[in-house]
């Protein structure tokens, strides 16, 4: 967990560092169980390919969760997320090897708002693909 970010110390326009998050077949099996979303395209390569996908793909909500982790790790434990939205623009492909897929998240302080709120603009890529667009979170900082 990161240190606590204070509203007064945040600068609009600041770029936040890139963080890479792994997405393996095991991650997806665990996410299926924890979320209750057992859509076969997240664990069955045969069916994923039969419906036109390159391979098994991560749940969109798994990818969004990594972006959420990026936000909360940056903001610190006493921050609260008041709004969080994304558009899923491409799937995260998860091959059956020891590496799987990688979700690379970056962020920027879009603006400082009244009420100790800070809006972050996020991007998430996997390989060459932009997997989240219009990703934005608003957090309340101490």
């Amino acid at each position, binding site marked *: 967990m990161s240190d606590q970010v204070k509203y007064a110390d945040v600068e609009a326009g600041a770029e936040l560092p890139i963080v890479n998050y792994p997405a393996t077949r095991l991650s997806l099996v665990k996410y299926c169980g924890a*979320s209750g979303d057992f859509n076969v395209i997240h664990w069955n390569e045969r069916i994923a390919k039969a419906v036109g996908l390159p391979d098994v793909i991560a749940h969109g909500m798994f990818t969004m*969760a990594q972006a959420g982790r990026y936000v909360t790790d940056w903001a610190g*434990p006493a921050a609260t997320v008041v709004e969080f939205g994304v558009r899923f623009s491409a799937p995260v492909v998860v091959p059956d090897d020891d590496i799987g897929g990688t979700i690379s998240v970056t962020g920027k302080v879009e603006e400082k708002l009244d009420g100790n709120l800070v809006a972050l603009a996020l991007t998430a890529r996997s390989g060459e693909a932009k997997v989240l667009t219009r990703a934005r979170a608003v957090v309340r900082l101490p």
Partner: protein
Amino acid sequence: MAINREYVGKTFPRTEPYEVSREKLREFADAIGDPNPVYRSRAAASEAGFADVIAPPTFPIVVSMAGSAQALADPGLNVNYAMVVHGEQRFVYTRPLLAGDVVTAEVTISDIKDVGRNSTLTTTTEIRTVEGELVVTAYSTIVERGGAG
């Protein structure tokens, strides 16, 4: 066959109460690979200013999906679930979900439209405690590939 536009504006019955448990929050945090102690330890959550262990920001999808599953299962809506992918997701939070909350989800279909060869279905789901407190609103858009027509 297209998604039935007569369902725009329809609100489905509230789901059965869902009790948010510490063990489920830990399981979910493990599954997303997030080691943050505020999702696991009462002491860490308390130090951060919360009354109990909190849920990760995307956890409310577990509750809202129970509501949207009910809508998608309505044969009159005519969604081919095998062709569905997630298009957009947004949450607006009053506060984090906490272990011990007992909540229900109420799903309203807010929009159905064609986008090129696909159809999109947008739902608004209010997650409230059984006492009536609005905790989070989830806005979801799903895309039925090839669903236009």
